[in-house]
Structures are given as C-alpha cells and as structure tokens.
C-alpha cells in the first residue's frame, strides 16, 4: 500500500510503502503438465491455454521452454512468474556462455537452482506461483524432476502437476514402465491429456508434446486430440428420469 500525504506546499509525496507487495493470488494461470521418462530421454505434454480466472483468455501460450542445451522446463500456475523464472534462467545460461569453457548447466543443476529460488521466495511469503517440471538429458542420463511453489522438490520417473496429480498420476502409475518407445510414450501422454481435457475445466484441446534427448529439445506443433461423445446414453440421458441432468 502506498500513502500520499499532502505537504505544505501542496505537493503529494509518496511515503514508505506500508506493506511490501507480495503475491497473494495468481491471475493468469496455466493448467497441468504431464511428463514421463522414456527410452531416449524425457517426454512432456502441456496444453496451450492461459486462464484469467474462469475466462479462457489466452490460447497460444507455450508453457514449455528449452533451457540451454540439456533441459526442458514446463510450468503450470501463474504465467507471469513463469516468464520471470525464464529470465532468471536466461541470466544463468548467459553467464555460462560468457565463460565459454565448454561447460553447460545440466538438468540436475537447473533443478537445484529452481528449488533454491522457489523455497527462498516462499520463505519471504512472496512465492512464485508455479509448479515447475524440469526434464533433461545430459551425458546419456535422463532426469525428470518437479518443484512446487512452496519449494517441495523431488525427482521421479513420471510427474504431473495441477489436476494431473489427481487424474493423470493413477494412469501413469499403472501404465508407465521403463524404456518405453517414443510412440508408446506419446500414446500414454495423450491418454492422460485426453482425460484431463474431459475433466479439467481449464484445459483446452490444443496441446504440444516436447521431447528432449541427447540430441536436444524439440517441441511439436500444436495439435488437438480426438474426443468421443457418441455414447448412446448421452443422446437422451434423462428420458427415463425427468428432473435429472
């Protein structure tokens, strides 16, 4: 809050801010991210929607970005905080490049950096309102981890954020196995994204799948999933039960 107090000569002067400005609620949010490790690296899927409360405001937001040569960062939650994090990581990679010694930040290092940043912001009661998914491959080893807005961070074979926690995790726990092929991995991710499309109100039918392998990052073009609405009981559901939905 800023106070203005009129002084004798009539000018208003902004005095100290009574309370530091801190994040209270998110405004433009992205919904879930689902990611799995597969044979050659990591596959990550997200849709391209940015909701402004209950309005689907933006339909072309890329919530997955390549970081350096070895990592891919996906974020759900506040989009502006995600852009801020990308700026921080830009500085990091820039610093790296300036050294020009052939070293580059791997996914583990970036994950650690993000964990520290998120946790420290949370301790100041000014969090970056995101759940981040960090995937990458360096020196043949694939890595997949997650950091939440309160600083909870861990590594796993398959992760999901937001609604994906409730809808996609059960499917992943059941059907993920080590060394999946690319096609199987994409099919599994599409299965999860389809359920999310049916049951998450902030999901849209425009998704991207990103792949990261030893060679680098490729983010697919946006595409949409086929949905099925032709159940016979959907045609006239309340035929026998007037007053029902």
């Amino acid at each position, binding site marked *: 809050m800023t106070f203005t107090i009129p002084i004798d000569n009539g000018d208003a002067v902004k005095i100290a801010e009574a309370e530091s400005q801190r994040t209270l609620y998110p405004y433009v949010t992205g919904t879930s991210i689902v990611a799995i490790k597969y044979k050659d690296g990591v596959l990550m899927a997200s849709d391209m929607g940015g909701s402004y409360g209950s309005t689907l405001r933006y339909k072309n937001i890329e919530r997955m970005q390549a970081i350096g040569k070895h990592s891919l960062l996906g974020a759900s939650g506040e989009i502006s905080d995600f852009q801020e994090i990308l700026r921080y990581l830009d500085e990091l990679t820039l610093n790296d490049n300036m050294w020009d010694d052939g070293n580059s930040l791997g996914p583990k290092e970036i994950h650690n950096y993000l964990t520290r940043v998120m946790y420290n912001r949370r301790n100041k009661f000014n969090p970056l309102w995101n759940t981040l998914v960090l995937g990458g491959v360096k020196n043949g080893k694939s890595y997949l981890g997650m950091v939440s807005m309160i600083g909870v961070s861990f590594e796993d074979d398959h992760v999901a954020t937001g609604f994906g926690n409730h809808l996609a995790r059960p499917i992943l*726990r059941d059907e993920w196995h080590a060394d999946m092929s690319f096609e199987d991995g994409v099919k599994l991710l599409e299965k999860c994204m389809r*359920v999310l499309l049916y049951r998450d109100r902030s999901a849209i039918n425009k998704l991207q799948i990103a792949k990261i392998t030893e060679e680098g990052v490729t983010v697919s073009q946006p595409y949409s999933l086929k949905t099925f609405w032709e159940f016979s009981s*959907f045609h006239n559901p309340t035929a026998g039960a007037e007053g029902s939905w």
Partner: protein
Amino acid sequence: MSQTAVDVPPKGGFSFDLCKRNDMLTQKGLKAPSFLKTGTTIVGLIFKDGVILGADTRATEGPIVADKNCEKIHYMAPNIYCCGAGTAADTEAVTDMVSSQLRLHRYQTGRDSRVITALTLLKKHLFSYQGHVSAALVLGGVDITGPHLHTIYPHGSTDTLPFATMGSGSLAAMSVFEAKYKEGLTRDEGIKLVAEAICSGIFNDLGSGSNVDICVITKGNKEYLRNYMEPNPRTYVSSKGYSFTKKTEVLLTKITPLLERVEITEVGEAMEE
C-alpha cells in the same frame, strides 16, 4: 376471552434453531465432534446386460481408519443397490429409510420397484435438508424399463450417466473410466473395469483403501460379490503362531463337576378377575 396456543404440527426440513448456539460455541473454542466419514471411492457403470456397482471398504474418522472392511453398497430393493460416500451415518440412514419406503410401495403397488422411484425419494429427502445430510450416492439398478445408473449429490441434484464415480477417490477412478470405458461391455469386462477403477482409488487416494466390493445387477438377477478383490492382505502374519517355551509344565489337572441345575416352577394362582 381464552388464549389458546394452537399447536402447529412440526413441518419437515432442517431446523436451524441450534445453529446460532453452535456458532457461539465454536467461537468460544469448542471443537465440533468429528464424524465418521467414508472418504471413499464408489463407482458404477452400465454394461450390456445391466449395471455394475463397485466400492472400496475403508471408513475414516479424520486421519484414522475406523473400519477396515465396511460395506458401502447398500440394499435398496431386490433389483436396486446404492453405493454411499460421505458421512457414514447419513448414507446408512438415508438408504435404509428409502429402502423401507420402497418396500411399502412394492406391497401397495404389487410391482417391482423402479430405480427412478428410489432416485426421486432420495433427492427429495436430501434437497429438503439443504446439503446438511452429507450423503453422495451412486444408485444403480435394473427395472422393467431397463438398466439405470444415477449419481445423487448431497444437495439433491442428480445425474444420469453411463458411468459414474463419487467420493474422494472419484478423480482417480474417473481417469480409469474416461480412458477405458466403451459401450456394450460384457459382464467380465465390466467387472474388470470396475475393479480397476476402485483399485485406482484405493492406491492413489488416501481416503480409500482395503478391499473391493462389487455388485452386478441384471434383469431378474443380482450378485453381491463382497470382497471381490483383496489387494491389501496382511503380509507379515507370523506363520509359527503362538508357541510356549519348553519350560512350561502342567501343575495340576482338576475337574470340578458343576452341580446340576434344578428348576423350580411354582404353580401360581390364577389371576383375580
């Protein structure tokens, strides 16, 4: 002039008289008594010949498992069953009440009960209590008009669906249904899918656990498969059982015969007129 107080018969619905007093008490620091919730996964789906209902068997009281093997699939009529999630007492009471009403109705009409009758009775009751009766139900059955599956929410709204899930594990179970349900499933496929959905709830939701109950209702026939699957057995039971150490010896064997019981029947006097 006489002043007579007219006794108005009590109207139905929730009496909000004590709400102010409860508010005052909670403000003063009294913790409301926690109630037994079922924190549940319940599902139903329509298959080729009828309806399959499934439920887990864990009843929770806050963070504690109060009943490891409770029954959440309640009998409503020979051809109608109802799974209940929410407060255990509410689901029990509401389903029992409607089940009795259905039976009386069957006696009066001489016909088999219809699922929509149970639906209307339940939703009327729940709506009149404005959501305070915390019962979320999956009602399924097969009657003369065919198989039906409905969900009923605590506030009294209902849905008619080909597949439905309720309870805290509903998202985990729904993800299985959305991914794998198709129309015209056979009995075995349907049971397998329902068991999978309940297991998804059991293993991915903390409020659900223990075993899987399944109920298959078809035209003229029903099968209540209690504990159809037990995916959480006690694995570390000691195989030796209890054994006493070698040093125990029998000190004394004494048999005391009990006295025979003698019954005295007094011949009473006849009652006075």
